């Protein structure tokens, strides 16, 4: 069976500056894949190419076997997207926003009615169906965007920073929803700058840097490659150095070599450590 997303040799340049530089990536059907990268790494450009909004300079992108550049019209029915910014129509209610999207995806009147009711129930917004967008909370808006993206039963869902600006409680509720969608068979392609979000949700993550993938694998595998234990050494109260070890025993052995004037923390490595080591940068929104 072919992959849900197959990217090969993808390049995009703006005014001679290469933003996506020979990107190769394959995302399996039913996978929950995290796409990480520092500010300016090319995440947004890649997503815009995958969702037919931007034409690549060269390379090929297949979504569910369909070439995005050659047949964008067919590809558009294959995916749904939840964008980072609020892209709902503020003049409409939550239900009307869903109806608009259903109409644009050619659902019949009966299908529209059934699907809207089903999805409002799915994202627990049935009681707020007739509220205007500006009259509901940020979390509700985000769930409405997810419901809208699912209206035409896409096989692939792009989530671009789906929990940005949400409080911790609402974020976890959205996480549950993302897991639920994925367990229902939807392939999820997630970009986030909340590293713990990628770690909590994704089966695999790919790290994008200067327009190409520099590491790919499960969060656990990437942590193992780096070292499961991190030692943070703060020198003279300001600059911090990081050392990575395969296990606590080796880390403890290292600690004995340090002088007492240094502040030291030993902890489990996380995906952020992997990311910072690979890119030399903290994750920032693209």
């Amino acid at each position, binding site marked *: 069976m072919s992959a849900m997303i197959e990217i090969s040799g993808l390049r995009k340049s703006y005014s001679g500056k290469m933003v996506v530089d020979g990107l190769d990536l394959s995302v399996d059907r039913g996978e929950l894949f995290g796409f990480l990268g520092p500010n300016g790494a090319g995440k947004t450009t890649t997503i815009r190419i995958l969702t037919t909004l931007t034409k690549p300079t060269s390379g090929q992108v297949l979504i569910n076997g369909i070439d995005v*550049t050659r047949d964008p019209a067919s590809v*558009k029915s294959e995916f749904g997207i939840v964008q980072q910014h609020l892209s709902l*129509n503020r*003049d409409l209610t939550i239900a009307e926003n869903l109806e608009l*999207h259903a*109409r644009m995806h050619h659902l019949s009147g009966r299908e529209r009615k059934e699907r809207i009711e089903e999805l409002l129930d799915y994202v627990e917004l049935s009681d707020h169906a007739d509220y205007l967008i500006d009259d509901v909370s940020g979390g509700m808006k985000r769930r409405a965007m997810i419901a809208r993206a699912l209206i035409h039963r896409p096989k692939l869902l792009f989530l671009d920073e789906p929990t940005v600006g949400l409080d911790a409680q609402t974020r976890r509720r959205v996480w549950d929803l993302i897991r639920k969608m994925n367990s229902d068979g939807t392939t999820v392609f997630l970009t986030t700058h909340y590293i713990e979000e990628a770690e909590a949700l994704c089966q695999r993550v790919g790290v994008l840097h200067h327009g190409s993938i520099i590491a790919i694998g499960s969060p656990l595998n990437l942590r193992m490659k780096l070292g499961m234990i991190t030692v943070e050494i703060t020198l003279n109260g300001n600059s911090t150095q990081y050392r990575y070890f395969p296990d606590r025993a080796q880390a403890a052995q290292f600690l004995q070599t340090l002088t007492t004037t240094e502040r030291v923390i030993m902890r489990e490595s996380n995906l952020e450590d992997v990311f910072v080591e690979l890119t030399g940068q903290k994750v920032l929104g693209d």
Partner: protein
Amino acid sequence: MMDAYSILWADLMALKRRWPRYILTTLVSPILYLVAFGWGLGRGINLNGASYLEFVIPGIIALTAMTTSFNGAGTRLNVDRLYFKSFDECLMAPIGLTSLLIGKALIGVVRGLVSSVAFLIVALIIAPQIHIGPQFLLGLLLTCLTFAFLGVLAALLARSHEDMATFGSLILMPMTFLGGTFFSLNQVPAGLKLALYALPLTHASVFLRAAALNQSLPWNSFLVLLAFFVAFLAGGMIALKRISI
């Protein structure tokens, strides 16, 4: 055409929810023009065999059609595209670019017709002798279509909200006062007259005025307006193709 209606449908829902407020706000400018120019400055003036009030009303209708159609389509699209970014949702939906273009323009056409007809009702109370026939309505529809597509074209070309404001100041504002709305083009020097005939609003005013005053219809102006409509539609299509893949 169903896809174009889907795009229009969203605006119809919004309009349905706010129609009393929309009509009230849309009537303010034309009524002010009517009071200031029709009753104030123009009292006692006769132009082309009609009172100035009868003369100016079709011009104000053309002006109202231009402003509301342009803003209804263009300003809304500009905000959706550059501020809310919700236009991307339309580009990612499986609808044809032609349907998308027509749907966005129809929003302006509907708003232009609603505003123009609302003002027309007020105008008919003040000047019941004005003749409203099929030719007048045809001219009004073409005016709304022309300026709605101009609005879409401007919004697709604009790279910022300032670009849209600049377009309004440099193109629409001069047209408002120079497009044969408030004065007869026979009163201006030949060179200026030629320049004013390059404006689409001039042809809309001239055609609507002749239809409203039951005079012989200047079909040349209708054809020029039609040519502007086709040019703006084609320009909009090219601009839309450039921003989509």
